[in-house]
């Protein structure tokens, strides 16, 4: 029989808070964490807002030698993993460590390290950079550091599928446990691209909003970037039960598709196939879905396409399902966004709290689903799905079920 996979720990950091519980309660209060960006040369950007982590002092959390090696995307991942592992309570014995892995998603990796060091050699004209630039910036830095901290010696790698990275990562972790390749997986994603070069590159695409993230709102005018991480402990159900772990939710299904179409324009069919695939994988009927955490970037085309895809995938169930985009509060955390958004899916199935889509002013006829506008809602949810549709036409949908 196929092994069942459950979540036994969660940890996170983003503009809404420094821990998973803080972020979830900020979401339920409808807090918008997006504000003025603060970093060198921000005055040269046309986009000056974002969901930046506030009040974070890395020296309070890391040693000098760790700081030399940890780009912010690694710092966020490590802190989140520590919180998740502490909540899970799982102890990695010598034997279990061989069956424990780490799969994290990231779109930018150590982009801030690249940005700073390019500045050093090109702008400042210096001829040497810190010796650890490479181990700081590499895409697998966060996954590897987390594996080293916990001694997880099983499957470990980083997934890079742009904005779907953490959903793909968590999907791989789910399948690792399901297949028996691992018993415990530390999984999620992180990104920190809020620096001059990171935003300047995005400006070029002309898809960013200069004044706010308003998913599904008729006044929406683009996405807003955030930063942060969320990491979860996925565990084989029997293993979690045997040690008496508290189970937050069951990972019920996962699916990934490629549009094989355009490098940036989303595709209704690819998105719908991913949703249908996740339901089929989990043996879930569309009518059982009580909450959808939408990709909901607040670009004109994403939100319209996603709504059409939801109707295509869920049929008549789409008309009554609650759909929200928490990006309106924490911004688009790129390779970490699916992980941060999974927090709201866990809150939905575990506690029956639905996070709202804030900044919603005017209904858009192209987005006429129940988008939980501005105010959180309490309702019992059996199944929640989380959508991620990335540049490159890569779609990944994960389904959670309330654990009974």
């Amino acid at each position, binding site marked *: 029989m196929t092994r069942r996979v459950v979540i036994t720990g969660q940890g996170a950091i983003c503009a809404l808070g420094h821990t998973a519980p803080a972020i979830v309660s900020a979401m339920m209060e409808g807090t918008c964490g997006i504000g003025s960006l603060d970093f060198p040369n921000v005055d040269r950007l046309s986009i000056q807002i974002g969901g930046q982590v506030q009040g974070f002092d890395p020296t309070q959390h890391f040693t000098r030698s760790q700081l030399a090696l940890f780009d912010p995307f690694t710092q966020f991942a490590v802190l989140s993993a520590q919180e998740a592992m502490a909540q899970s309570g799982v102890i990695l014995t010598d034997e279990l460590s061989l069956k424990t892995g780490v799969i994290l998603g990231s779109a930018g990796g150590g982009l801030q390290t690249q940005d700073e060091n390019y500045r050093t050699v090109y702008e400042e004209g210096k*001829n040497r950079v810190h*010796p650890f630039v490479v181990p700081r910036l590499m895409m697998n830095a966060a996954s590897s550091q987390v594996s080293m901290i916990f001694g997880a010696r099983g499957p470990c790698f980083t997934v890079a599928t742009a904005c779907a990275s953490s959903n793909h990562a968590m999907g791989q972790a789910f399948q690792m446990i399901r297949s028996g390749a691992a018993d415990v997986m530390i999984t999620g994603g992180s990104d920190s691209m809020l620096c001059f070069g990171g935003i300047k590159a995005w400006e070029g695409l002309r898809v960013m909003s200069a004044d706010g993230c308003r998913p599904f709102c008729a006044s929406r005018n683009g996405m807003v970037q955030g930063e942060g991480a969320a990491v979860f402990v996925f565990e084989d159900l029997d293993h979690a039960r045997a040690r008496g772990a508290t189970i937050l939710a069951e990972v019920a299904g996962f699916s990934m598709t490629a549009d094989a179409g355009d490098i940036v324009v989303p595709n209704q069919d690819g998105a719908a196939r991913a949703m249908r695939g996740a339901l089929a994988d989990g043996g879930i009927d569309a009518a059982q879905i009580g909450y959808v955490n939408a990709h909901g970037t607040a670009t004109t085309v994403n939100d319209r396409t996603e709504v059409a895809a939801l109707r295509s995938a869920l049929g008549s169930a789409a008309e009554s399902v609650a759909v929200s985009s928490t990006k309106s509060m924490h911004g688009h955390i790129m390779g970490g966004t699916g992980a941060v958004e999974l927090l709201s899916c866990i809150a939905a199935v575990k506690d029956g709290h639905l996070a709202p889509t804030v900044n919603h002013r005017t209904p858009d006829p192209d987005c006429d689903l129940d988008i939980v506008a501005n105010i959180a809602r309490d309702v019992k949810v059996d199944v929640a799905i989380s959508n991620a549709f990335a540049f490159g036409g890569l779609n990944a949908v994960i389904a959670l079920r309330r654990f009974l």
Partner: protein
Amino acid sequence: MSVSEKIREILAEQALLSASDVSSTATLEDLGIDSMGVVEVIFAIEEAFSIEVPFNANDPEASAFDVSSVQAITQAVEQLIAAQKPTG
């Protein structure tokens, strides 16, 4: 600050010690500085004295730069300062 004082300061910072705990006869191993730490120390020395240090982490023994003790490092740096124009 003399070359010797500056080097002891760099090593102390790397080893999380105070400079007075860094004796001239100590080896990097005595100070608890591992191979990654050595590379950071070399970087800090290059930055502090605006010199290029010939050091290959693949084979530290074969490098022209002697890192066998605090004193050896100090002498090597003094020679490099004398031999090289500041590179900025």
